């Protein structure tokens, strides 16, 4: 897994749904950069103008609820965000995030300890989030071993490619 990721926190509330992350009207593209222009447009069309490359989303409960649209993690990645920290994630979004290479950390109520504008240093491998602004460190849930295997193959595309090659071999 990757080296620590440093970025500024953008906080969001509970139940941020996939229509908020990327409204259906924009689902006529599969390009992350195009989708990224409309990231969070269903919540606030101006949101994306306040986000810069490397920023980190910190959300409440059930982040990504709703549709199975993989365009949601792609839009977040397209907006330059590589990490989402949340109290909890919706099931399909959680799986999609890892498949697309978006790092997701589920931290429960500890998310409340992070404020908008805090600078965070996230170490997904160690399962720690260091808040450089407040000096607090949050321990997060480890990535399940099976999902680590998928991440080690570079996501699900790499995992399936590997299986196909083994079959052929």
């Amino acid at each position, binding site marked *: 897994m990757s080296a620590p990721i440093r970025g500024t926190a953008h906080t969001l509330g509970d139940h941020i749904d996939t*229509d908020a992350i990327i409204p259906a009207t924009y689902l006529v593209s599969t390009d992350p950069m195009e989708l990224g222009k409309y990231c969070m447009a269903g919540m606030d069309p101006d949101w994306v103008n306040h986000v810069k490359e490397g920023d980190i989303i910190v959300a409440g409960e059930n982040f990504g609820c709703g549709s199975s*649209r993989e365009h949601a993690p792609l839009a977040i990645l397209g907006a330059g965000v590589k990490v989402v920290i949340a109290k909890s994630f919706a099931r399909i979004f959680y799986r999609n995030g890892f498949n697309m290479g978006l790092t997701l950390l589920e931290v429960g109520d500890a998310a409340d300890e992070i404020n908008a504008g805090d600078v965070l240093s996230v170490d997904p491998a160690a399962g720690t989030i260091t808040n450089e602004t407040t000096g607090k460190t949050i321990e997060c849930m480890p990535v399940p071993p099976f999902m680590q295997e998928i991440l080690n193959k570079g996501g699900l595309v790499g995992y399936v490619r590997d299986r196909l090659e083994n079959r052929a071999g």
Partner: protein
Amino acid sequence: MRRTLTEKLLAAHAVSGEAKTGSIVQCRVDLALANDITAPLAVKSFRAMGATQVFDKNKVALVMDHFTPNRDIASAEQVRGVREFAREMGVVHYYEGGDCGVEHALLPELGLVGPGDVVVGADSHTCTYGALGAFATGMGSTDVAGAMVLGETWFKVPGAIRVTIKGELAPWVGAKDLILRLIGEIGVAGARYRALEFDGPVVDDLSVEGRMTMANMAIEAGGKVGLFAADDKTLEYCAAHNRPGAEKIAADEGAEYEREIIIDVTGMTPRVAVPHLPENVKGVEECKGTTIDQVVIGSCTNGRIEDLREAATVLGGRKVSKNVRAIILPATPKIWQQAMDEGLFSVFMDAGCVVGPPTCGPCLGGHMGILGKGERAIATTNRNFKGRMGHLESEVYLAGPAVAAASAVAGEIVHPDAL
């Protein structure tokens, strides 16, 4: 070991791993599904995986139902790409024109899903097929692409919540009200990472279509699947829908559930979910005086023939309010034909409704019923997130077909008895 229906279905498909709650298991899939929004990404991932063929040409379904008939050039191009992929791969179950319907109404009707199956779909409402006793769940495009290539995927076996529904249903109260009641009680994250297994006398009395309405919205409580035992009714449905030889399946007596919920529906009035979450559930009487601009009766939740019959019963001999656009979308060509043959369209047209082709369009703010700024709709669809049906400053209320039809007449949200 006494097993939940969830464990039983996954165990029967396991190629590695043990199908017990909490463990990760690799399973064969009986069908992998995608639509015109999710298939383009699945095709992209499929190619990136280096695959050259699908695992089984008969076990992949591609249904172009969201932005179709194509709303613009971009959606036409997406569909064109999927159509070319389907031809190249020899996919048997590709649907686009006059044979196309809303996927989760269409596939059960065609007999492509049935009891005991494991189905994965790049659409969150794939859970609808749980009504037939199938383990069916929504995933992303890349996950479904993997299943299209390998014929397998992995699942974390979810813990199950048993929901027993008993009591007497009042007139105009149906399947939609039951599932809204549950979501109102447990919340939109109440079944997150869990399976919902429904039983009880009220569920036994429901039609298979009604069970589909309920299973459809399991995802609205965060559920992975919404399951019903396959009983005599299920087998009758299957026999009538191109699925002969289906077998009964149910949870073992005494299976262990994480949580048990008992709901008594005696005395319950029709339910309405108010903006902007499906958990904001109220009795219809609490919504009195809420004026509306649009009604949508259709979608994978409530676009089946019994839904249209219920709407027609309410609309018969009445007129839609001058201030309301009432849009009726039968979910499949077969339902469309049946509604026409039964004379339901005359009722709808006489009342002043618009009858459209099968499409998911308005449910997700795609096309054919978009809301403008400040407009309010009551719909038989499944989500009322902010901006779901159009403008960010519009509102969607969710209800069953009877309340939606009655509200079209009144111009405000009302109980059908109040007309």
